[in-house]
């Protein structure tokens, strides 16, 4: 499979093999397609809501953005480098004439190449289930783009941040879950001032801004362009700190 990619991207290919060699990809797939099951509820009880509202307010924001998306990305991102530290295999990569930034970049790339299609595929399936006959309408499609763009932004941002976390703490998976559930959900909700330092706020802002639907709203939403800029900045900062950390890490 894609063996030509080994030469330009050896760390990336290694990480892809690592993901598929273990159970993590399958756990991620199950979590990513869970919303599709919830989507079927709409067939039986739409609550007189339009499909976009149901998908955004009953599934995407409370379930996917709040929990499933961070956790699925978390499983892959913390595994990408964290497992190498845990198994002490990282020296196979760091004792080579390649830059630490490139190791971080390829590890993040592998995380995204696996998590983006799986999570977005799960969302697309959910969309098709909820919208059924209306899925091809132009109005529905613009909602779909908003949904996918918002999720993609969240995946990239969480991927970079959790990769960074895994370089600082041994139990990155646990710390990440606490971060996703406590920080992003509770603090962000009750202390509105903290919103600006929560990835969730910007992913939701992208959804709300792009969907352009009166019923799908977020108080204090940031503009789409600004949100994208913030997420890009977060990713760059996380990668640079990861590189610095990898350079100074003492490997026992």
């Amino acid at each position: 499979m894609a063996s030509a990619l080994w030469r330009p991207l050896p760390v990336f290919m290694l990480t892809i093999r690592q993901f598929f060699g273990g159970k993590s990809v399958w756990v991620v797939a199950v979590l990513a397609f869970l919303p599709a099951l919830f989507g079927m509820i709409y067939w039986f009880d739409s609550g007189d809501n339009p499909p976009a509202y149901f998908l955004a307010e009953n599934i995407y924001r409370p379930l996917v953005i709040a929990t499933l998306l961070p956790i699925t990305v978390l499983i892959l991102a913390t595994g990408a480098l964290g497992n190498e530290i845990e198994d002490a295999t990282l020296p196979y990569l760091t004792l080579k004439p390649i830059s630490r930034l490139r190791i971080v970049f390829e590890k993040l790339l592998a995380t995204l190449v696996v998590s983006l299609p799986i999570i977005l595929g799960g969302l697309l399936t959910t969309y098709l289930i909820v919208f059924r006959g209306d899925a091809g309408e132009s109005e529905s499609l613009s909602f779909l783009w908003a949904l996918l763009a918002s999720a993609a932004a969240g995946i990239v941002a969480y991927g970079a941040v959790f990769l960074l976390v895994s370089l600082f703490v041994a139990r990155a998976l646990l710390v990440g879950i606490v971060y996703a559930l406590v920080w992003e959900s509770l603090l962000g909700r009750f202390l509105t001032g903290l919103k600006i330092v929560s990835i969730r706020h910007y992913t939701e802002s992208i959804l709300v801004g792009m969907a352009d639907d009166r019923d799908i709203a977020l108080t204090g939403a940031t503009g789409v362009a600004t949100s994208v800029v913030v997420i890009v900045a977060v990713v760059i900062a996380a990668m640079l700190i990861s590189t610095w950390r990898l350079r100074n890490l003492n490997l026992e």
Partner: protein
Amino acid sequence: MAAADPSRPVAIMSDTPTIVLDHVSKWYGDLVAVSDLSFSIGPGVTALLGPNGSGKSTTLKMICGLLGPSTGAITIDGLPARGDSKAYRNLGVVLDIEQVYPYLSGREFVRMNAQLQKLPDVDAATERALAIVEMTDAANRKVGGYSKGMRQRIKLAGALVHDPNVVLMDEPLNGTDPEQRAHMIRLMWELGRQGKTLLVSSHVLSEVERFAENIIVIINGKLGAAGNYRTIRERIDNHPHIVRLGANEPRKLASALVTLPQISSVRIDKDGRVFVETGELRDFYRMVPRLAKEQNVRLTELQAADESLESVFSYLVER
């Protein structure tokens, strides 16, 4: 803490050194792992010998840049290994790591090393390295199914794939069977003969004899001794060992001990403990119980007197 001490021995093993350690120390809080270590080695096979926990692995990890020294400087071919990834083009490292990516085949692992080294002909380099360690036949099997000895060899192939001039190996003979051991030792000789610099750690003196021309002995993180095998061996063998004995009748025991030919001196301290100096430790240990029985003395203690060079040397010899 651990300031450079000019009286500390500096081992200069070569006129054309490739690896140079200059007053290197490493500590973790209060724990000193390596203390003011200075040596330089050149082409050929050099062994880094010392008991487990003496600081061998820490030293090797500092040389290859995985650990930063607390003080001091290390260079390989004039380049610092830490902070400059270019140094790895000329350096191959076999660490004492259990794991090799179990989901890759042996060939894939070696290929990956070749690709990470950005070699122009990855395939040729991979096959050459697999042939050197005689793993060509098993190369398509997953590393997860390899024995420990096979993992050691595939790790070595990965470390040699770019034909480096400097090779570091941490306990490479651990977990190998006699045949693999013989092969590994032949390989080290061959690499040394080609003019490469090999630094190989071991805690077994008799094993080191088979592959190393020069030996650096590390004890408690300090340079214990350095030189060629014969010099070290003589120094270890001729070094008097001090043994402490306790008995219910120490005076009776002491006067009997004086008659033993292996003993050069006997003394008793004020607590009634007997200290014996002997050049032939093994014989002495064999004789003492018999002697005690003949004299009807009950032995309560028999051990090397301190954790100094002597006891470490005896540890190395007794293996």
